[in-house]
């Protein structure tokens, strides 16, 4: 059994190449099955094949067939502990474009569950999923937003907590504004109004979010009915002034201005109960959280290294397990043979006592050698220990 990884990622391959080898889940599973004992992890940033006992050249050939060209100098090939460590880093989001992004863990799970790998690949993927979960639980790497639009939604949640039922007014049909609205909607907010210079465009977007379309002239009345305002028009000046904002509200009003030049009068931010973030503020928040992610990534790397060490120990223990099993079987065989000699010479009660005592003696006698062999397994002498045990106890033939 040898764990091998052959793959390419955004670190080494340009998007023109990656898009040729990117497969959907079904196609990736089909490729893995066609190779044998394998799992194919294919996302927009990477296509990687984790295989056991398959010729590396065959795996590379399969990738080159997809790419339509030679992949020399682009693919990486890793084996055993290095391949496991790589997979653990991938599952933890440490190899991603944005460190700590959480989507990759779901993709690793989907790739693993789409096939039925053998014991080695199965073990390394199960451990990778556990590592990914552990990193997200024990570090704050995935808690911070990594884009302007997700930062806007996270800030709104910092004001309102749960965004379920919070009403949003989206001004303008710009791409970033739409993304911010989508992020808010994914957190449970209700995109109640979409306002635009042309009502037709507003209708289109409003239909998609299930809201009501408005023209820019109807903004002021709508403000009394919403909690969050997202603005991203291409207007040359402010579309909303401080005087338009209703006073003395019981709940805060959160304004997100993603437009350049800005859509929202800066005075709005000074009003009681109003919070205003423009594009520079959001970018500063993202930069700060990314710095935080990098700090958390260091902790995550420590956890991943710890797990890789555990994998190495497990892998090494596989070399001594047969020797341990044979030793115990041999001891048990001798015990049973000696017990058989007692047949008819002792009562049932005495026999049970003797069985119990001999079993305990055997267990106590073999406990320390078993532990020592497992400990030695992770050292370079592991195989020598196993050979010595086989030789000393005459287990070579078993």
């Amino acid at each position, binding site marked *: 059994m040898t764990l091998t990884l052959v793959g390419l990622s955004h670190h080494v391959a340009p998007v023109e190449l990656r898009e040729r080898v990117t497969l959907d889940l079904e196609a990736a599973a089909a490729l893995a099955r066609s190779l044998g004992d394998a799992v194919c992890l294919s996302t927009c940033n990477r296509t990687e094949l984790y295989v056991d006992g398959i010729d590396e050249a065959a795996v590379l050939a399969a990738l080159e067939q997809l790419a339509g060209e030679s992949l020399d100098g682009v693919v990486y090939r890793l084996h055993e502990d290095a391949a496991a460590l790589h997979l653990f880093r991938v599952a933890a989001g440490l190899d991603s474009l944005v460190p700590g992004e959480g989507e990759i863990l779901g993709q690793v799970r989907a790739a693993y569950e789409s096939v039925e790998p053998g014991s080695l690949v199965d073990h390394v993927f199960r451990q990778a999923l556990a590592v990914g979960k552990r990193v997200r639980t024990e570090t704050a790497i995935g808690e911070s*937003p990594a884009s302007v639009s997700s*930062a806007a939604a996270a800030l709104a949640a910092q004001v309102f907590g749960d965004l379920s039922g919070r009403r949003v007014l989206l001004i303008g049909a710009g791409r970033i504004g739409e993304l911010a609205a989508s992020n808010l909607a994914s957190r449970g907010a209700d995109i109640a109004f979409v306002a635009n210079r042309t009502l037709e465009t507003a209708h289109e977007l409003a239909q998609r979010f299930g809201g009501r379309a408005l023209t820019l002239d109807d903004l002021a009345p709508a403000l009394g009915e919403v909690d969050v305002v997202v603005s991203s028009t291409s207007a040359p000046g402010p579309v909303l002034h401080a005087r338009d904002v209703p006073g003395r509200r019981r709940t805060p009003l959160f304004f997100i201005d993603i437009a350049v030049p800005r859509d929202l009068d800066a005075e709005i931010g000074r009003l009681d109960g109003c919070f205003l973030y423009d594009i520079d503020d959001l970018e500063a*928040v993202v930069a700060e959280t990314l710095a935080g992610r990098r700090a958390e990534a260091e902790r995550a790397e420590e956890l991943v290294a710890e797990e890789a060490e555990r994998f190495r120990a497990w892998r090494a223990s596989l070399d001594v397990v047969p020797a341990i099993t044979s030793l115990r079987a041999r001891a048990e065989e001798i015990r049973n043979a000696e017990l058989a000699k007692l047949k008819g010479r002792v009562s049932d009660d005495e026999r049970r006592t003797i069985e119990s005592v001999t079993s305990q003696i055997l267990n106590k006698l073999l406990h320390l050698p078993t532990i020592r062999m497992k400990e030695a397994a992770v050292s370079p002498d592991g195989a020598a220990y196993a050979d010595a045990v086989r030789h000393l106890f005459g287990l070579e033939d078993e």
Partner: protein
Amino acid sequence: MVEVFFWPALLGYGEAAFAYASARTSRAATWGVRIGWLAQTALLAAQAAGADAFPWSSWAGSLNLFVWFVVGAYLIWGCRPRFRLLGLAVMPLAAALFLVARIGGGTAAGVKSGYGNVFLVLHVGLVLAAFAGFTLAAALAALYLWEERRLKRRAADILRLRLPPLASLEQLTWRTIAVSLPLLTLGLAAGVIRQRERGGSLDALEVVTLGTWLVYGGFLALRPTGRRAAYLALGGFALVIIARLVLAGSHFT
């Protein structure tokens, strides 16, 4: 006997006070709070078992009980990872007051008490529990003001050094006061009954405590929001401070 419980309690609170400073050690801090509070509970039980009457009648004894109520309220409302900074505000104060209570003799066993009357016991216990709740509410209100200021100023680290959302802080402040005010009301009623039995007139502490009741009563009746709510909660707490730290001695003697 009580020594056995005092030091683990102080150690737990002290550990929490320091461990809440970092997100990495906040889990250990939470365990410090839990273990410390259990040890203090055992300490109070030991004090109660060895006393002939209410054992926390002195100012130091009531401080001991007050700390137990504050930490207990924190355990119920705020002992969560997102409330780490609340722990950082509450636990150093709890550890310091607990130490002061010990220096004043409030954690000793076998203290002679003149508090045998049930109404007096109820009065002291309930008022202290209410004051503990108001202390926690004030900490929550202070956190609200700080977080609101950071949001207003558009602090770049707002999501990195993350506090609970404004809405949660506001709601928790309100709930804590909503639980504490009935306790204060019952405590004051018990005190009035006791005073009628014994006779005597209103002292300064009683006047301030009535003022506290009015402020928090107004808080619940008017249900203000935002900064106004936070300022009102802190205003009520200022009266609690006056009652506990400035006037408590005269009332107890």
